[in-house]
């Protein structure tokens, strides 16, 4: 039992923290980044590449630093604190995991160098959070697959140079088998996309595939066997998202407590009111519970048993979602009017936390998933 970072991890935390502070310490800068075409400043992305965090999770043979889930947790927590807008989770953590586990290593160097953004396109109009719910058809034609269909809310999809498309090559809409992951060049004829900002100041895209030809060689993993890879990668992304949420919640709780100590009403600091103090304590308790589960998620992601891994991740997501909701809502409430304004940072944390709760399945979804699996989480 050990909750300490190794020396290397401490160093990583420190250097990422510094990088984030230099890029996001002034909150106004963030608004500037968002004005760029795909919602982030390529110069910041290039700095990430330079700092090595774009290659962090890849093995040394793959040209990376061999970072594990704890390293990802460290980076994501700093991103959460900073409210970073770059598609790190989408490209490096989520797509990166698919490439890693699907042994499709050819474009990892492009990710590592910052040259290409890779975005996962799996959500469809009616799929909600079910990874097995895939209709987009990939029809085999000679040495190609031909893709026909639409994908929604593709995180980082606006800037993507490649898409990883979850396509159905066999079976019915919700079958577990028959899902194939394909690496698709975003410049392929027949692809059109529409990028847009998301509610939390990040970016996504709707992507449509009209008779898009993809060489069979671009199959990631094995044809028809994409779901386990997808599930594992999404679990890793959820673990990263949990860490990001903890970074955001930690900053938000501190910010709120600070505000209560300085804001005066009725001639006294409002932090002198016991009801508000106790609310802050409840926020802290929720934060610590979330932090514990973010650690749990990170340390469970490599579990060899996919069911145990998925259950741990679901449990973490439930706790994170609940904590995020409570802390987000209460920090806005305790701030009063200023908490709902665009110019103040608290509201942006709140919005990001709200979207984190929705992403990859909300608390209810993961609770139901756990209940259905009959897993024993604590006893």
């Amino acid at each position, binding site marked *: 039992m050990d909750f300490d970072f190794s020396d290397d991890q401490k160093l990583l935390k420190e250097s990422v923290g510094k990088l984030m502070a230099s890029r996001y310490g002034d909150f106004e800068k963030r608004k500037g980044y968002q004005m760029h075409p795909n919602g982030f400043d390529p110069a910041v992305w290039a700095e990430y590449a330079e700092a090595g965090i774009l290659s962090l999770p890849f093995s040394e043979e793959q040209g990376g630093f061999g970072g594990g889930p704890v390293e990802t947790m460290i980076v994501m927590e700093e991103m959460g604190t900073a409210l970073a807008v770059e598609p790190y989770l989408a490209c490096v953590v989520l797509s990166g995991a698919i490439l890693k586990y699907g042994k499709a290593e050819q474009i990892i160097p492009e990710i590592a160098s910052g040259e290409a953004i890779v975005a996962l396109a799996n*959500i469809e*109009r*009616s799929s*909600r*959070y*079910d990874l097995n*719910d895939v209709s987009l058809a990939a029809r085999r034609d000679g040495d190609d697959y031909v893709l026909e269909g639409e994908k*929604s*809310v593709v995180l980082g999809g606006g800037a993507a140079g490649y898409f990883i498309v979850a396509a159905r090559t066999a079976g019915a809409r*919700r079958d577990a088998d028959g899902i194939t992951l394909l690496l698709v060049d975003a410049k392929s004829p027949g692809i059109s996309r*529409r990028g*847009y*900002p*998301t*509610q*939390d100041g990040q970016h*996504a895209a*709707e992507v449509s595939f009209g008779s898009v030809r993809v060489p069979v060689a671009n199959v990631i993993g094995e044809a028809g066997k994409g779901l386990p890879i997808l599930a594992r990668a999404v679990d890793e992304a959820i673990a990263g998202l949990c860490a990001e949420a903890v970074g955001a919640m930690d900053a938000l709780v501190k910010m709120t407590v600070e505000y209560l100590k300085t804001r*005066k*009403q*009725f*001639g006294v600091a409002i932090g002198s*009111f016991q*009801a*508000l103090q106790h609310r802050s304590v409840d926020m802290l308790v929720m934060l610590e519970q979330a932090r514990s589960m973010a650690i749990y998620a990170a340390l469970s992601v490599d579990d060899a048993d996919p069911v145990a891994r998925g259950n741990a991740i679901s449990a973490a997501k439930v706790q994170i979602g609940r904590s995020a909701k409570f802390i987000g*809502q209460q920090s*806005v*409430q305790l701030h*009063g*009017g200023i*908490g*709902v*304004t*665009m*110019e103040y940072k608290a*509201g*942006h944390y*709140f*919005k990001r936390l*709200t*979207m984190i709760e*929705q*992403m990859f399945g*909300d608390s*209810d979804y993961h609770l*139901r998933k756990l209940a259905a699996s009959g897993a024993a989480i604590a006893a």
Partner: protein
Amino acid sequence: MDLNLSAEEMAFRDEVRAFIAAELSPETREKLVLGREIGKHDFVEWQRKLNAKGWAVPNWPVEWGGQNWEPMQEYIFLDELQQAPAPSPLQFNCSMVGPVIATFGSEEQKKKFLAPTANLDIWWCQGFSEPGAGSDLAGLKTTARREGDFYIINGQKTWTTLAQYADWIFVLARTNPQAEKKQQGISFILVDMKTPGVTVRPIQLIDGGREVNEVWFDEVKVPAENLVGQENRGWDYAKYLLTNERMGIARIGVSKQRIRRIKELAKIERYGDTQLLDQPWFREKLVSVEIELKALEITQLRVLAEARKRGKHGEADPNSSILKIKGSELQQVTTELMMDVMGPYVLPFAASMDDEDRTNEPPIGPDYAASAGPTYFNSRKISIYGGSNEIQRNIIAKAILGF
């Protein structure tokens, strides 16, 4: 004891309902259904129709267009508007400054302002809150210095809703800084927004909308005749006004309408192989909120029944603080349920929700999804403004529980 509407009440409700069905512009209704902001035009057009019917200012004295309705009628009227959904008569005009002028204003003020206020020929905004004084309204710092026949106003107001549309603003300003208690020495002054020195700066809220503003007063010269009532008595008028504001504070009709809408959409949205609405867990969440809403509706009716007994101009009922707390919580929770309906489509941000920036791009995902997130974000203010829920708890603790 009887929970049913009387025959007269039922007839009245049907009349209101028929009027709305016949007169409300479909465009305005559509905006409200989709959770988009409605613009000045929607408000004005609708309020003029109501005014023509005699329903814009039912709570005013009869000679100025009032209807002398029972509290129950007033409630039915507002509830039907909310459920339609239709805009309510602009509250700054109808529940706030109008009754104050009608009760405390000079004859000249009544003649000059009341009719155009009822018809929304004048759009009013409220100049009460200040950056340093949120819940502690009496701590305000804006000053009005008397110079000859004028007041010179200096200071800053904030959270001024829809000031961008306003022709006039009613301002609380300190006319006697030496007064013993902070509630004393405040005056209630009417200010033309076109007066030199008045600056409006919009505040963008986290939903992307710009419904509130800062209003700055820099040596703004206002004729002394724009003082309402007596100098230094403004706090009393403000209190009177805030009491008026409390009718329908729980906005039950809004929550009802949203729940109905959620049910409609949850039939369209799929969940696995079924309608979302067929999922037991979703129905349980929904019905759980409905139960609380039903309870609150009856609580509201009980408060109204008490109001009828006390007569119309009784003291503010501290029980309305219960309605505010629970009503705001339920409005907020219905916006959460609406997000649940959308699933991943809650993420896309559709340009901006306010009129000016609206683009003509097609929606991302279903057209009803775009407002779910923003409506939730915006709803957080409901438990903050008009006396935060913490302030409401203080009121109840003192006025009802006797702490």
